[in-house]
């Protein structure tokens, strides 16, 4: 994450991958395309999540709240006005507004509290989705949501009801979102967020308004979650409360952990493997969460860098140890806790 520009080989692989993604509907049947859409949605979801976690040091267990707001928001709009772009934009905007409100309440808190709060807020949104029958349809959810055409009045109207066509909508938007995130994390804002992650105190004393930047990261993550949720709605044609449940919040967490927290591609790679593994597991048993629980435990204890750490050029000191201040010439890691000593 210290900003090595990608090598030529990596760029070529990336180009090949993008090309393959565009060619997918020509070679694959409906189910693989459906799966690919889900992978892309989770990738967008996870990339937003990791801006908060990997880059800003904030572990949120409540991102499904914004995912759900994006999904329900899109649903409500599409049920009223069958315009895909409007639905998507509306879902994202609604999620963004929610992220502003909840962010203001959450980011003033330190990491543990923050994680607990996000879990609570996520489940709060779940309980609203479940109870507010009149608006959300309660536990039956909203049904019959059209896979509305991609329409700009007066300019174009593309029918995307076929799975293969809707795939291209998701693909293009996902690629744009991921590209935007790439630019963001490699910008001064991205650098500043990482500084805040490494040492909140030091960042403050470097003139960075820490709370404001955390809020910005939170809002962006919420927008991405909202986009992911909004993209799901036309795919499934229904929205039900489980999209707001903590188990949905867990998906970007698991995907990112699997792929690698400290790499940009980690959440994307992780999203792919998440679905691959889940697809295999559910063929044998309906109890797939327990297996993912085992994977999470194994990753945290044995392989915290995730899949991408195999490719990492440097072994960054991710396990900050106690500093050995009595040995001046030994490499020492800085303290993980920022304490202002009281003399």
């Amino acid at each position, binding site marked *: 994450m*210290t900003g090595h520009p990608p090598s030529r080989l990596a760029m070529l692989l990336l180009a090949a991958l993008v090309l393959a993604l565009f060619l997918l509907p020509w070679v694959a049947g409906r189910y693989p395309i459906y799966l690919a859409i889900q992978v892309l949605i989770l990738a967008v979801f996870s990339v937003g999540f990791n801006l908060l976690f990997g880059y800003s040091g904030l572990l949120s267990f409540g991102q499904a709240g914004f995912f759900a707001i994006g999904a329900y928001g899109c649903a409500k709009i599409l049920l009223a006005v069958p315009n895909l772009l409007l639905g998507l934009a509306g879902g994202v905007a609604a999620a963004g507004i929610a992220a502003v409100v909840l962010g203001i309440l959450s980011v003033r808190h330190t990491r543990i509290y923050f994680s607990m709060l996000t879990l609570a807020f996520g489940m709060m949104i779940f309980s609203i989705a479940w109870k507010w029958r009149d608006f959300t349809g309660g536990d039956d959810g909203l049904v019959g949501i059209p896979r509305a055409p991609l329409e700009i009045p007066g300019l174009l109207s593309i029918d995307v009801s076929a799975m293969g066509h809707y795939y291209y909508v998701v693909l293009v938007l996902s690629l744009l979102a991921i590209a935007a995130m790439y630019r963001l994390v490699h910008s001064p804002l991205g*650098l500043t967020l990482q500084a805040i992650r490494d040492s909140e105190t030091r960042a403050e004393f470097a003139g960075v308004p820490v709370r404001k930047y955390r809020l910005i990261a939170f809002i962006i993550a919420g927008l991405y979650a909202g986009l992911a949720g909004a993209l799901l709605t036309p795919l499934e044609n229904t929205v039900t409360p489980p999209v707001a449940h903590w188990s949905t919040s867990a998906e970007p967490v698991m995907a990112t952990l699997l792929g690698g927290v400290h790499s940009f591609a980690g959440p994307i790679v992780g999203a792919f493997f998440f679905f691959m593994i889940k697809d295999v597991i559910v063929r044998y048993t309906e109890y797939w969460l327990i297996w993912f629980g085992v994977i999470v435990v194994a990753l945290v204890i044995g392989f915290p860098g995730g899949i991408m750490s195999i490719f990492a050029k440097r072994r960054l000191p991710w396990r900050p140890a106690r*500093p050995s201040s009595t040995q001046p010439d030994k490499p020492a890691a800085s303290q993980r806790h920022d304490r202002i000593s009281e003399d």
Partner: protein
Amino acid sequence: MTEFLKIEGIAKRFGDFAAINGVSLTLPADRLTAIIGPNGAGKTTLINLATGALFPDSGTIHFKGEAITRLAIHRRIHKGLSRSFQIMNIFARLSVLQNILVPVLSRRGRAGMPFSKMEREQEAVTEARRILGEIGLLDEQNDPAGELSHGDQRLLELGIAIAPAPELCFLDEPSSGLTPVERARVLGLIRKLSAARHTTFVIVEHDMDVVFSLADWIVVMNRGQVLAEGPPAEIRENRAVREIYLGEELTA
């Protein structure tokens, strides 16, 4: 000499403990001040109050004529204050260059630019490299900061403190834990920056050699109050000061 930093009647309690018990201090610009005193005297608390890590229970702090008593930390940095830490506080996962870039970008108001490519921030990068050159870490610019040796991390810590081009910089025990060679490097840097008249340093130190070789002015604290202040020669002769440093060598 202008009234640069003016601290008037500040007090700070932690529960029953009065860490600072009525301190008034006026520091002019361009005079390197050292704050000394036994453990628990309140030196670091004073820095915390001056830089905004803590707010005083009573009293006021003015910087360049402006009241900053309850101003947020990051705003004080933009007004020209800065500090280094006793416990090392660097950005461990970032490279050495990036560690310096963060305060530089922040000072330039560029820290929040979301889409600008880092390559475009050339001015900031150049300035960061210049600072690295001054503290002698230019060769390590791409190494992760967490992998530096202890002494180099201290230098980096100092670099981060001076990177926002502060007018007033507090250094909290800058030489602690350093080998003699490293200490000489740090002191040389402080002397050079001080002499160039860009930054006024206020140093908290335990090491008397360092204090007497650097300071133009010494403030002695004890039990949350200022016991004495004056030029080094005066302080050296001061009876009360010698008493609290029972047996310790005051002469350099």
